[in-house]
């Protein structure tokens, strides 16, 4: 397809997409391949106004199985989608939703102390939110239609798919 990006804009947007895709895919695969992995302890450690909901989730063993499964495979699929540029806009939305949940469960408020100490200092904005914003950028500046499977999908799928999916 035609695009209005300059060469350097396109290059850097693709690089941003690949970086985030790489990050999600690897994070997801490590969890999928580790049979003992569970988000339970992370959720138990939740703070802030939604903490009650996350802590309740963590104490429900049946629910945790689904949460772990969904989280692991969502990470993998989102990562894959961004990396190979397949349903890239849908992947961006999915990634933003996951990151929003991570942020809501562990809001970077002043005075919040978590089990896993962060390696830096954060107030309101942490790396999850920066990544979330970057995914929003990728959503409004799609590149997979140029470099990615979406290039093919764009041609074969109906137009209604274009807005939020590819």
């Amino acid at each position, binding site marked *: 397809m*035609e695009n209005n990006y300059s060469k350097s804009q396109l290059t850097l947007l693709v690089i941003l997409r690949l970086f985030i895709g*790489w990050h999600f895919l690897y994070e997801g*695969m490590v969890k999928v391949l*580790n049979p003992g992995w*569970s988000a339970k302890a992370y959720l138990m450690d939740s703070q802030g106004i939604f903490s009650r909901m996350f802590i309740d989730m963590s104490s429900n063993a049946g629910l945790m199985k689904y949460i772990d499964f969904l989280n692991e495979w969502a990470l993998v699929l989102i990562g894959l989608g961004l990396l*190979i540029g397949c349903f890239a806009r849908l992947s961006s939305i999915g990634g933003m939703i996951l990151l929003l949940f991570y942020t809501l469960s562990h809001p970077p408020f002043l005075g919040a102390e978590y089990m896993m100490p962060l390696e830096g200092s954060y107030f309101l904005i942490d790396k999850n939110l920066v990544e979330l914003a970057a995914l929003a950028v990728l959503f409004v500046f799609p590149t997979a239609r*140029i470099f*990615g*499977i979406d290039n093919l999908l764009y041609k074969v799928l109906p137009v209604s798919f274009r807005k939020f999916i590819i």
Partner: protein
Amino acid sequence: MEKEKKDNTPKKIARRDVIKSLATVPLLGAVAYGVIKTRKNALLNRDISDVFHISSSDALFLQPKPDGRQIRLGLIGFGIRGNQLMRALGFAEPSYIDNLAEEKKNNPDDTRLDLFREQDNLNIVINGVCDIFDVYGEAAQRAGANINREGSNGKSGPVPKRYRTYQELLAADDIDAVVIAAPDHWHGTMAMDAARSGKHVYCEKPLTWTVPETYMLHQTIKETGAVFQLGHQGRQTACYQKAAEIIEKDLLGHVNLIEVCTNRNTPNGAWVYDIIEGSNPQTIDWKQFEGNKDRIKEYTDYMKSNGLERYMGPEERDQFSFERFFRWRCWWDYSTGLSGDLLTHEYDAVNQIMHLGIPASAASSGGVYFFKDGRTVPDVLQTTFEWPDRDVSMLYSATLASSRDRGKVFMGHDASMEVSNILSITADRNSERYAEKIKQGVISTDQPFFTYVPGQSKVDAVTSATELYFAQRGLLYTYVNGKRYDTTHLHLREWLECIRQGQTTSCNIDMAFDEAITAHMGTRAYLEGRTMYWDKDKKEIVRGEKA
């Protein structure tokens, strides 16, 4: 874009488009490389059962039988501990319930009221209470009558009779068993009298105040056959059972040093309790508080014959004192100090886990280094106990003026084990048993390789991230069959079930005898400034040369 909108028909796919479409796919190979490398580590055999094999069973507690008979209780002493024991039995003052309800209203996360109300009904009735302070005695009656666990507006049951003396309570024939939560100097006497009156006995720790009464009480309980439980509720800690198994299976290698500690840093923790409103010589029966004549003689004889008068008093025993009544733990005249109050908990845990019995020797040092409020008992104390037949030392180290937590640690040649509500084992970097696993990278020596979280852990496997998080955060409670329990409640329940089922309690009179003698050895070593030895054959404490 405009052009595209008009033309929605699929376009022909050019070769160039295919290449562009698949341009980033080769990157998958690079991710796959990382994943495969990581996968090797993730799937590395974390099973360590060849060198670390323990059972998968959770802790066992004596379970109540459904058709057990109701037990009629009497309570002696309704101070701070007496209150706690009554609540663990399911009886609280209505005002306490009001407070919890208020707290819950202010903070919905405060579950204390629910936990108290959900606590199992132990099928008991409180028929008599005794306290020599009117305020406490009347409060005990209100608690005993609160059979529905309700607040001030609730409907209470029959009010238990209040006895002015414990002897009268023991003479009552509608009481089967007594819970003793009087000051230390009364424990042995009351327990002996209770057993002789045909009552079963739950007695708060320490077992005794003087050495001679320790032998008499041991004999009395044996002769009368009373079901006796000493109040070391730590016996019901799930982790201690697992710890005992780990020791038995020699998974730490030879344990040669045990360190146990007390670290407190509040006036309350240092026994400076509130002076309660309504207390005066008319509402407190001071004569009874003074103690039993025989016990006082044993105490005085020991102190005087060893030149320890400086640790007595300083006030006369018959002189009324608010401080001495409410803060009696600060004076040897009524107390057993750190040894009796807190070392005993630690020792009993170690004895439960390692079955060490009475040590061959004890040496102590310490002093009154912070709370210079006229107390005679030390606020900093170190006592070392030796078991040369087991090749192990135990160091008890206590301070009432620093809350730096030092844990309960069993140090072995191959690993060290820290035990609290959870249990964690860290391999020693010079271990032989775990050498190969350490070399393979399966066991790390920087952090615990095994963490037992009651009801949560998989045994026989390296600590998972989740367990480590649990351990670091202490997000733990003792659960029995999925229900959260208070250890004091379980300890009382065990005693009641032993009465019903004719079984032996976990902290029975033999365990209690070990506890008392060990504490007395530590106390005497401190007071006399010399090592105390235990003559196993004569069953006597023998003094060493004065240092």
